[in-house]
């Protein structure tokens, strides 16, 4: 049985299709239609809801796109929707601010904005404009031009948003904790198709072995499109979000070990500490809703050529910790991708963790090029990890996305850098060699010629960034 709180009401689902999304549940089963479907692909944010879960005895609030979140993944959590914010006819402060600032026109995207704003203020009472933009980058509005929405968000900064929900937190945390302690199996099924929620790596392995056709799902930010867009009805789904071993962070002097089912949001603070340029990339990976759901393990395992973290993990020589019925073993990520959406993941196997070596002697440069700065898929994603001695390149790892059928290293260009000064002249051969490494394709995002040109220019950007004593702005995002 899958149990969760829909606002303050407990819901138990036993016989539901594993592919049922939260939005479908809300609109067709619960008949709560405040949350809207704008795209059913996690790109517009009109369906944004907030999910609260107990972390260290307290409620942690995050926004999600309900259109690509599977209802089974709500087990033991509280789902908060726009219907719940208004208490006794009084608008919630974020709702009132949007009214006062004329933040809605057609109003269709508005419930999603309200939920993102609600969550922003639940977690931070003094957001800056940049933080407001980060919180709302996954909410598209076609009417207002966003200015009044930004003003509405900032009008509350520092004022606090006292609401009735805050007073119910402790009680909700208790209810959720009780729910998770019930000795029932967290699952639902429709016919022979199941949604399973294992809590340990052993249990996960056992379920994968028992259901050979099962599909793992973590955040589902990519996988759910097979449901909402391709209308597939998957066999059994196994949700990794509650597996203890997959949601751990380990840290040593030499490495970080990140559980594969940790969301981007979970790992961002640690990456900020060790690899600030990687953390900056994450700010532009999808939207906050997507980063709250999507996971490092999912980004690697689905092996998309345009996933944003694999190029960086390639540059960092990350090591994958894999588990399968044959046991546990490790593999350098550079060996993992074998073809378009093909990997060396063993049958009934999964990624347990990603180990990232800490190499303070290396400098990491990370760049993402897309049509739109926010919430867009890369035309090119590039990560360069360079070790210099007396200005000469000792080690170079160049990881790219969008340049080939898989995330890939530029081995020829890496070779061409070795022994050269990391300077405008020193990289020329490597820039040329990129054309040997890659023959990128033309597609909806960019032409192959542009991709190659930009990849070459990004090497130059790294050089300029390294040798930039006056801290001159070199990227438009820095300038603004």
């Amino acid at each position, binding site marked *: 049985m899958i149990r969760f709180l829909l606002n303050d009401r407990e819901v138990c689902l036993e016989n539901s299709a594993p592919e049922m999304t939260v939005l479908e549940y809300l609109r067709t089963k619960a008949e709560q239609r405040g949350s809207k479907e704008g795209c059913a692909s996690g790109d517009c944010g009109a369906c944004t809801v907030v999910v609260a879960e107990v972390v260290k005895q307290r409620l942690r609030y995050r926004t999600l796109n309900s259109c690509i979140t599977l209802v089974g993944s709500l087990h033991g959590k509280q789902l908060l929707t726009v219907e719940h914010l208004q208490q006794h006819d009084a608008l919630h402060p974020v709702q009132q601010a949007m009214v006062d600032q004329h933040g809605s026109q*057609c109003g269709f995207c508005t419930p999603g904005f309200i939920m993102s704003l609600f969550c922003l203020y639940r977690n931070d009472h003094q957001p800056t404009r940049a933080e407001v933009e980060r919180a709302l980058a996954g909410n598209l509005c076609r009417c207002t031009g966003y200015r009044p929405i930004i003003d509405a968000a900032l009008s509350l900064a520092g004022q606090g948003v006292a609401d009735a929900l805050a007073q119910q937190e402790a009680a909700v945390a208790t209810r959720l904790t009780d729910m998770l302690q019930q000795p029932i199996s967290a699952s639902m099924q429709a016919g022979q198709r199941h949604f399973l929620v294992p809590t340990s790596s052993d249990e996960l392995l056992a379920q994968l072995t028992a259901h050979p056709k099962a599909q793992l799902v973590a955040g589902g930010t990519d996988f759910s499109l097979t449901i909402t867009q391709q209308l597939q009805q998957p066999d059994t789904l196994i949700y990794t979000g509650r597996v203890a071993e997959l949601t751990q962070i380990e840290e040593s002097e030499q490495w970080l070990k990140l559980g594969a089912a940790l969301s981007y949001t979970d790992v961002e603070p640690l990456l900020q500490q060790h690899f600030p340029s990687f953390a900056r990339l994450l700010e532009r990976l999808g939207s906050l809703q997507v980063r709250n759901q999507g996971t490092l393990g999912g980004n690697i395992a689905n092996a998309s050529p345009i996933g944003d973290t694999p190029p960086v993990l390639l540059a960092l020589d990350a090591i994958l910790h894999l588990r399968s019925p044959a046991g546990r073993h490790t593999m350098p990520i550079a060996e993992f991708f074998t073809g378009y959406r093909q990997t060396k993941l063993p049958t009934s196997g999964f990624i347990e963790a990603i180990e990232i070596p800490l190499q303070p002697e290396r400098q990491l440069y990370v760049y993402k090029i897309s049509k739109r700065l926010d919430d867009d898929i890369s035309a090119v994603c590039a990560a360069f990890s360079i070790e210099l001695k007396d200005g000469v390149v000792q080690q170079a790892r160049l990881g790219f996305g969008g340049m080939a059928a898989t995330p890939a290293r530029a081995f020829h260009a890496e070779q061409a850098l070795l022994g050269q000064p990391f300077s405008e002249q020193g990289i020329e051969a490597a820039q040329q060699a990129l054309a040997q490494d890659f023959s990128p394709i033309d597609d909806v995002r960019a032409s192959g010629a542009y991709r190659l040109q930009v990849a070459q220019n990004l090497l130059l950007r790294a050089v300029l960034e390294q040798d930039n004593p006056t801290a*001159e702005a070199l990227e438009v995002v820095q300038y603004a």
Partner: protein
Amino acid sequence: MRNLKAKGSPASQVAGTTGVARVHESATKHVSGTAIYVDDMLEPRGTLYGAVGYSSIAKGRITGMDLSAVRQSEGVVDILVVEDIPGVTDIGAVFGGDPILTSEEIKYQGQPIFVVVAETEQQARRAVKQAKIEFVEDVPTLDVIEALTAQQFVRPSHFMSHGDAQAALAKAPKRLQAEQHVGGQEHFYLEGQVALVVPAEDGGMLVYSSTQHPSEVQKLVAEVLSVPANRITVDMRRMGGGFGGKESQAAGWACMAAALVLKTGKPVKLRLPRVDDMTMTGKRHPFYNTYDIGFDEQGLIQGADIMVAGNCGHSADLSDAIVDRAMFHADNAYYLADVSIAGHRCRTNTVSHTAFRGFGGPQGMMIIERAMDDIARAVGKDPLDVRKLNLYSAGGRDTTPYHQTVEHNVLLELIEQLEQNSDYRARRAEITQWNKTSRVLQRGLALTPVKFGISFTLQHLNQAGALIHIYTDGSIQVNHGGTEMGQGLHTKIIQIVAEALAIDPHEIQITATRTDKVPNTSPTAASSGTDLNGQAARNAALTLKQRIAECVAEHKACGRDSVRFADGRIYWGDQGESMSFADGALFAYENRVSLSATGYYKTPKIWYDREQAKGRPFFYFANGAAVSEVVVDTLTGEYKVLAVDILHDVGRSLNPALDCGQIEGGFIQGMGWLTTEELKWNDKGVLLSNGPATYKIPAISDTPKRFKVDLFARANEEDTVYHSKAVGEPPFMLAISVWSALRDAISSLSNYQVSPPLDTPATPERVLNAMMATREQAAEQKGKGR
């Protein structure tokens, strides 16, 4: 009604009448999720859900269709094909050419072939995938220039001229020629196309449709079903955005649902998933434009020969009027002296392109704004000076290419005010200097004006009706022919009626737009919603006011002139006697006065002789100007809009908050059109950018940090509703300043010697290519010792 009691007196202060920044009438419902869109209505029991099967190829014929697996798919109840349609099967808005469904010829990818209904939406959508349709494929025409060369047109070409362009060009001291491609645009209303149709008596139906044009939906549903229009009622409370995409192209889905209601006897809902919506509905027309312009050493235009060619897709839809509007705006704000303008309507094998905010005007303006920048580079001037030099002005420089005199022209004054307020000259100097030393980034600045003609160019659409009921408690229901798509039309109408009756706006309830309340309405389009419906509602209110006043005068034995309405009360006589408006309503009822009235309005002064291409198609012009500053990255072509200053002319603003909302929203939407919103079809005519993952409208951080919007304080000199001006479309074109600023930044790489071509959308890729080309051209010119 025997036990009648009037409510207590309304507030003595009448707040929120016109001129006040009243919040949107649905704002609290928007924020609390209680505003109901068509898909949010609880369906009647037994409702079936539809999904549309469409063509996977762009051109050819259907040679075989096997829908048996569709029929056997889980939950499926019925299937609709074109042979099932009892009435008319061509649902073209104006000229025909738009089959509701096809079983033979295929003219574009996404052409509807069949509709399936099932017990759930998911079942219907899965069933569609079971269809086996065989096609024989032809080679599609996809390129606008190919269609133009072959003269494949959906409508005949149109020409307008003033003076002798060729003679003027021949003797002009300087002359430039150029061409440009202007990209189309997906509407991306957040609420997709949807209709819910419920059966009624006598073969009638109640149609809930997300449409800007309920009367046209009513007409087409009636024709498709072959019933009189009086059996069909269309109800539209609100849309989740329209932008023109629900003007003509909302009707098909309602017609299909209605035909399925007829076939099954059950209510039917048909809602397009986003990808289907983007695939099956038309977009803003892409255009191919050219100019040949002659000018003097100062950059003053002597003559111009302009060609605009709209890529209309497979059928006419509204393209005749759209390309006309592109022609009407190919001058934008400038006197072109001896000028000829040609407009072509090219037929290609894509979905039929349709209305979109600006209705061709933006695409037409692009060519002359390109010319302004090019002329400025050629004569070595700041483009702003060339623009100002060429503005329409008195003294024989006030006649448009369609022979309308530009009256009440405020643009020079408006531009100079903006130039001052935005500190344009100082910023220009600082940017030019900064660009000289910047290593990677370059900045650009541009000021561009907008002069936009207000009125439907199809004359009979310039009319509107309204219906007002006053109930005996003094509360009021207002209905009118306009539709609410977020623009705040209903809010403005409430304010107008409140002002006309001098009552508190809270007394007024706006109801859904319905064809059984106000018939034969025009689409809510051409920025005309308030101009037309506001006047109609005001006229209805004035009629009722007159009736009540006469009743009071008669029964209180005072002069009609002594009766006045103020602060929610009715005063009469010279002793200061009064009663509340509510008491007045009851008083009038008890004295047997009708408290229900219609109002009607038609726009005066306008006419256009299309044969001669002469007339006054526009009642007046709305004006504005914007200054945009951008920064571009010379390594990648990425850019950001840093600052925008706008001064816009809405006449006497009915509601400054709503007007600013239209200006800001229009600007950002225009910016998206010219920058990141890229439509891509493959070489077989299949739309690749068919979802928000591949089609990028502006997101929140694209809004510039500095975004300053001011209203130009000047009442409309024409007699519009409270001397306001239309605001829906004109601000969209202010975004041309962003594109011009990008060109300015790119031009800086040549020290402003080269005027780089930059087709739109100006994606980072196009910007990088333009920068590389500019550098090469600058090096060549240097090599030649220039």
